[in-house]
C-alpha cells in the first residue's frame, strides 16, 4: 500500500462485498418464497433479480424474500416497490421475466404491463 488511490480502490471493492449490509432506500423487491413459489422456480427468480441488479450496478434497491403471497397459480410472484411509487405485483416471473423487470421497471421506470397482477399495496 503506497498511495491513497490504492486505499480508495480497496474501499470501493470491499464496499461491493458489503453491499447487502448497506441501507438501500430507493426501492425494494420482494420475492415470494412459499412452497408453491419455490416449486414454481422462485429461487431462480430471486437469484436472477440479484444477479441482474449487480450487472446493472444498482446498489440502492433491496432484495428480500417473503412467504406465500396467496397467488399460487401465478407463481413465482414478486413485488416491486420503488420509493414514492405504488408497488407493483408481478406474476409468472421466471428467470427471463425477472431480468426484464429489473431492466424495464427498476432501471427504466416503466412498469411491465403484461406481467402485472395488481398495482398498489395488497
Amino acid at each position: 500500500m503506497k498511495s491513497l488511490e490504492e486505499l480508495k480502490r480497496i474501499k470501493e471493492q470491499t464496499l461491493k462485498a458489503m453491499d447487502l449490509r448497506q441501507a438501500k432506500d430507493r426501492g425494494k423487491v420482494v420475492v415470494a418464497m412459499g412452497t408453491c413459489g419455490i416449486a414454481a422456480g422462485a429461487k431462480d427468480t430471486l437469484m436472477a433479480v440479484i444477479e441482474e441488479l449487480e450487472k446493472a450496478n444498482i446498489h440502492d434497491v433491496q432484495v428480500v424474500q417473503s412467504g406465500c403471497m396467496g397467488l399460487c397459480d401465478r407463481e413465482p410472484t414478486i413485488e416491486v416497490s420503488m420509493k414514492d411509487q405504488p408497488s407493483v405485483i408481478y406474476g409468472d416471473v421466471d428467470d427471463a421475466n425477472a431480468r426484464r423487470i429489473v431492466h424495464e421497471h427498476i432501471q427504466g421506470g416503466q412498469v411491465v404491463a403484461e406481467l402485472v397482477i395488481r398495482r398498489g399495496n395488497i
Partner: protein
Amino acid sequence: MIRNQLLICAGGACITSGEKSVKDALVEELARNGIQDEVQIIETGCMGACDLGPIVVVYPEGTFYQKVNVQNAGLIVSEHLVKGRTVPELLYHGPTSEKKAQTSEEIPFYTRQVKRVLRNCGVIDPLSIEEYIARDGYFGLGKALEMGPDEIIKTVQDSGLRGRGGAGFPTGIKWKATKDATGSPKYVVCNGDEGDPGAFMDRSVLEGDPHSVIEAMVIAGFAVGAATGYVYVRAEYPLAIERLDYALKKAREYGFLGKNILNSGFDFDIEIRIGAGAFVCGEETALLRSIEGKRGIPSLKPPFPAQAGLWGKPTLINNVETYANIAPILINGADWFRSVGTSKSPGTKVFALVGKVQNTGLVEVPMGTTLRELVFDIGGGIRDGKKFKGAQTGGPSGGVITADYLDMPIDFDTVKEIGTIMGSGGLVILDEDNCMVDVAKFYLEFIVDESCGKCTPCREGTRQMYRIMERICDGKGRGGDVEKLKSLGKVIQLTSLCGLGQTAPNPVLSTIRFFEDEYRAHIEDKKCPAHVCKHLLTYSINPDKCVGCTACARQCPVQAIGGQVKKVHVIDQATCIKCGACYEVCRFDAILKE
C-alpha cells in the same frame, strides 16, 4: 452470487453463551439446504446487547434474531432463508412495546445510541482489514500524513477530546506536550489495562475493531515524532490480544505499519505487551514501569510521561477508547466532533451498562445524556419491577449517583461535583435490594487486594477502613465508626501518591454522603435495611403460613429447623447460620427474612 449475509456477534459475551455452536449449526443447515454458496456468514465484534446473545442479524433485511441456540438456529435457514418467513420466536419483544421488533432499529436499546467509537463493532468482520478500509479505515491516517504534526495536534486540541480512561485530561494537550518534549526516541503507548469490575468497553473495541486503535496510534506516532508504539493489554483478554495481534500483522502486510508508511517517509511499528493482572498497572506510570519489565508501581508526577515516560523518554499514553475517537476526528474535523456532547465534554462516551437493568450491555451515548435515559430508555428500566436506588460509576475509584440526580446530564465535570468520577465507563445499576454498605465494602476489598503497597496510607489505611466496614456488616459496628471512616478516607485521599490510592476511599465516602442512614441502621439498630448483610438478618417461620411440609427442615444444612409433619416448624436462632436455604425452598412464603 451472495444473496444474504448472516452477521453473528462474536463478542466475548456471545461467545460465552454459545456463539460458536450456533455458527456451526447454521453452516450445517445451509449445506443441508444446498444454499451454502448463496449465503455468507460473518463473525463480528460486540453488537452491544449482551444479554440478548447469541445474536444473528440477517441482511439485506437487517432482521435481528436474539437468544439463538443450537436447537433453533436451523429455523433461520429453513424458514427465513429458504421460505422467506421470519422466525417470530427469535425476534426481540421489549417489555413495553406491543409488537416484536424486526430490526435493531426498532429496539430502544439501539435507537438512542450514537455510535462513533463503536462505529464498526458488530458491523464489520474484525479480522478483515478490507472491511475496515471500506468503512473509511486508514483514510484518517492518509489525511494526517498530508496535514503534518502541527495541524493534527491542533485538530485534536480543537475537538476538545478528553481522555476516556477516567480522568478526562485534554488529549490534545498531552499530544502537544509529548511533541514539544526534548529527548529521543519517543514512544506511543495504548492503555488497554481495563480493570474496573464490570467494565468491558476497551475489550469490546479491541475485539470488534482493532484497526481503529492501530490507525490512531500510527497517527499519534507521526504527530509526536515516535517510531515505536506499545499496546498494553491485560492477560485476562485473550481474544482481544489474538484479534489485535492478527490486525497488527495485516496492517504490516498492507504497509500501514513498518517503513515508509504510505510513501511518507515515516516509520512506525507497534508491539503488544501483556499485563499480568495487577489493577494498579492501569495507572499510567505503573503501566510504563511494567512495560519496562519492572514491577508495576506508580511514580511521582511530575515528571509526566510526556517528559519522562518509558525508559525516561517522552511518552504519549492514551486509553483505547480515546484512540478509537482519533481517526474520525481527523476525517470529519473538530466541529463535527463537537456536534454532540456538552461544551466541556464533547463527543460520546461508551458505557458498560450492567447490574439490575433489563438490558445489559455496551452502549454509546452523547456526553450529557442523563442517567434516566441510560437506565430507563436504553436499559429498559430495573429488573423485576424493583426500584432504582443508584448507579455506581468509576469502579473502585468512583462513587454513586442517586435517584435525585437521575436527570443530571452526565459528563466529566458534573459527576465530579457529586463526589464520583466518570471513570472508564463502567456503570453498575443498583436497586432496592442492594445494601450500599455492602457495595462499598466490595469495592474496598478490591482495593485492599490491589493496592501495590508503596504508600502507607493506601496500603494500611484501606485495610483499616475495610476492617471497620467488615465489623459494621457483621453487626459489630461501634458509635463513631462513620466519623472514623470519613477521617481515614480524607487522609488516604490527601497522602497517597497515585490516582488509585487517592480515589480508593471514594466508594465509602460517596455512599456515606448519600446513604448515611443505612450505615446508622447497621451500626445502631443492627439492621440491614436491604436484607443483604447476613449477620444482621434473622430468619423465622410465620406460623399462619407454614403447612408443615418439612421442605425447609430437610434443606437446612445445620438442622436448625424442628417440627413435625403437618405441624408448624420453628427455627432455632442459636443454631441458624443464616444461609437462606429455607427461604429459597419454601413454597408457601412462610419464611420471614428481617
